[in-house]
């Protein structure tokens, strides 16, 4: 970009005013070309984002619907109120629980499946790939129905199987202890497929001869995995962790279809809390909650970049 004006000036030579007009015309043309995108971006992307950010510093509720300018600026009041709102703190804790347990679990399973499909399993490989990916493309609503049947306290498959070995299974979705683990298991099951595909692609890029060399040196399977696969897969793992982190921090569908946030708010996520507040008509309060969630996503992503950056 910097080269263009210099070029013009050189060509223009003595006629200074001519080059200035030309430059202005070029600038105008450039803006003209960029205009359709700029307008769409400002109106439909930046506009709503900035408006909601602005909204979070006001006391906008449903009573102001007809007269949205009749609101007051309240500064950070929504934010301070959120930080002392027990239900919000509960939802923040739940979200953290979901992320901290859910991401490593999902990544671990996906990695194990990907490694197995990449090297171990030769027959029916395509069938397994399709099988593991199916949950990703299945509607959450249908999935929820099946999972609720699985987790039914007295007639569900899980508790029936547990009953065979003499364990009296809990009422999974209505127990404050077990509801969240149940949802985490379901989320891991649903999202593993995406990660598996990404990890498989990553595994394909690792040269075979490295493994062969390691085998010649007498490295066992575990050693090869730790010293070759994991380090070379780092960028792929980072991508997976960031994708999952962003998705899991906003987790909403699972409790929405399975538990409605219960029992006793133990599966209420920050996104669900925000959704509820919007429903109650507390628009500014909900906006503030979603910006806190946005901040959390930024922080978590930065931490992930730090932990998983390629070591050079």
């Amino acid at each position, binding site marked *: 970009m910097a080269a263009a004006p210099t070029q013009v000036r050189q060509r223009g030579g003595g006629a200074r005013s001519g080059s200035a007009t030309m430059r202005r015309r070029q600038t105008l043309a450039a803006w003209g070309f960029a205009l359709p995108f700029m307008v769409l971006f400002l109106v439909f992307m930046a506009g709503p984002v900035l408006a909601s950010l602005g909204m979070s510093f006001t006391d906008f509720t449903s009573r102001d619907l*007809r007269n949205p300018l*009749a609101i007051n600026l309240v500064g950070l009041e929504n934010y301070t109120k959120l930080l002392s709102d027990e239900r919000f703190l509960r939802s923040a804790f739940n979200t953290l629980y979901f992320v901290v347990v859910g991401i490593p679990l999902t990544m671990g399973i996906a990695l194990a499946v990907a490694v197995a499909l990449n090297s171990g399993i030769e027959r029916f490989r395509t069938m397994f790939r399709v099988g593991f990916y199916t949950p990703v493309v299945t509607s959450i609503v249908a999935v929820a129905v099946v999972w609720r049947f699985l987790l039914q306290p007295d007639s569900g498959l899980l508790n029936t199987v547990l009953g065979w070995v003499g364990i009296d299974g809990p009422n999974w979705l209505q127990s404050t202890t077990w509801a969240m683990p149940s949802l985490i298991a379901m989320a891991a099951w649903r999202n593993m497929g995406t990660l598996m595909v990404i990890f498989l692609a990553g595994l394909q890029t690792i040269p075979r001869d490295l493994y062969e060399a390691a085998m010649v040196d007498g490295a066992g399977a575990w050693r090869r995995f730790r010293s070759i696969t994991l380090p070379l897969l780092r960028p792929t793992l980072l991508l997976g962790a960031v994708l999952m982190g962003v998705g899991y921090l906003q987790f909403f569908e699972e409790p929405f279809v399975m538990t409605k946030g219960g*029992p006793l708010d133990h599966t209420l996520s920050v996104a669900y809390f925000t959704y509820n507040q919007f*429903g*109650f*008509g507390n628009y500014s309060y909900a906006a503030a909650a979603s910006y806190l969630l946005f901040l959390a996503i930024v922080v978590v992503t930065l931490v992930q970049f730090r932990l998983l950056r390629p070591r050079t």
Partner: protein
Amino acid sequence: MTARRTIGALLLAAVLALAGCGRDEGGGDGAAEQSKAIAEGPATGEITVWAMGTEGELLPKLAAEFQKENPDATVKVTAVPWDGAHDKISTAIAGRQTPDVSLLGTTWMGEFAGTGGLDPVPADLVTPGDFFEGPWNTVAVKGTPYGVPWYTDTRVLYYRKDLADKAGVQAPTTWEELKTFVKALQDKGGAKYGIYLQPAGRGNWQTLAPFVWQAGGDMVNDPANPTEYTLDTPQWSEALDFQKSFYDEKLSQATALQPGEIESKFAKGELGSFVSGPWHVGLVKDQGVKDEQLGLAVMPKKQTGTSFVGGGNLAVFKDAKNRDGAWKFVQWLSRPETQQNWYDTSKDLPAIKAAWEGGALASDPLLKVFNTQLEDAKAPPAVATWEQVAQVIDTESEKVFKGASSTADATKAIQSQASSIGLGT
């Protein structure tokens, strides 16, 4: 540099504009907002109507008859799914692009009236005394009616008559009798659980609320003009303790049932009784409960035998393009003949008393129970923040029923959280 300065100036202007235009106090929510009367004569022009669920699908049939009586008017009904309806109406009010008339959930009245988007009912359009008191109270926000009840429902006790006969008990009329009745259904009638009272999950409060009213309590100090919540009164404790005793004595299961389970368990005879609205008559019969097996009874009494009233109201928007036509259509829908006709079409129970005096509504013995119960049925207060307070009650009462919190702590927590949520004015 110039760009940055422009943005800075714009931001400053925006902030100043916002700071300059605070909310004017007491504008829209003044107590005595008056609405001018509508013109005489038949309705004219196009009347746009939004209606949800089955009502939305069936209303065009009724509207056709309205058009016969008002040849110059056309009614355009848009069916809206219940799920998205609340948001759709909020958006319509915000954009001032509302229909003329809409069906509104009874618990939405406080909120939407608070936006200033609803037109108060013109004087002399309908006579409040013609309606059951419970449904009428759902349209009145601080004494001003912002809509007209269209259809209504109330909850009564469903029980297995054959099991009750086997156990040798009659339908209960008091709290004490309810306890012995349920126990008998379980011990002698052979039901696994004598009753099902929803212990957890959203909407839990709708099970608790009738017990509170029956004990003589209420949610606010003055339902017509509420100034504070009354959620930590002895009546609330009494109601919570009473409902909890059913779980403690294993008369109701202490975990929530999935949708559909109530009917199937009731049909199998595993469940002796439950409390629900008129829609359950069809549902349990679909599951194979025979007419002679099904008994309905009005709510048992403590101080009163009050039940919960729900249903749908019709409201006209301030931004309606055809205000006169809209109110005339609402008025026509509230006539006893129209309401009877509507019952035949939709099985929605009429909110107007006179409509119960003829046809199937007068002769069906099951419907008579609902009719009797409607005489003593209440709705939650029409305050804008009610749904939010309801969520607090859901959570805190669940804690009590699970034994995670004492009744005293729970009522204290409900009251303090509700106070900080406020009445939304």
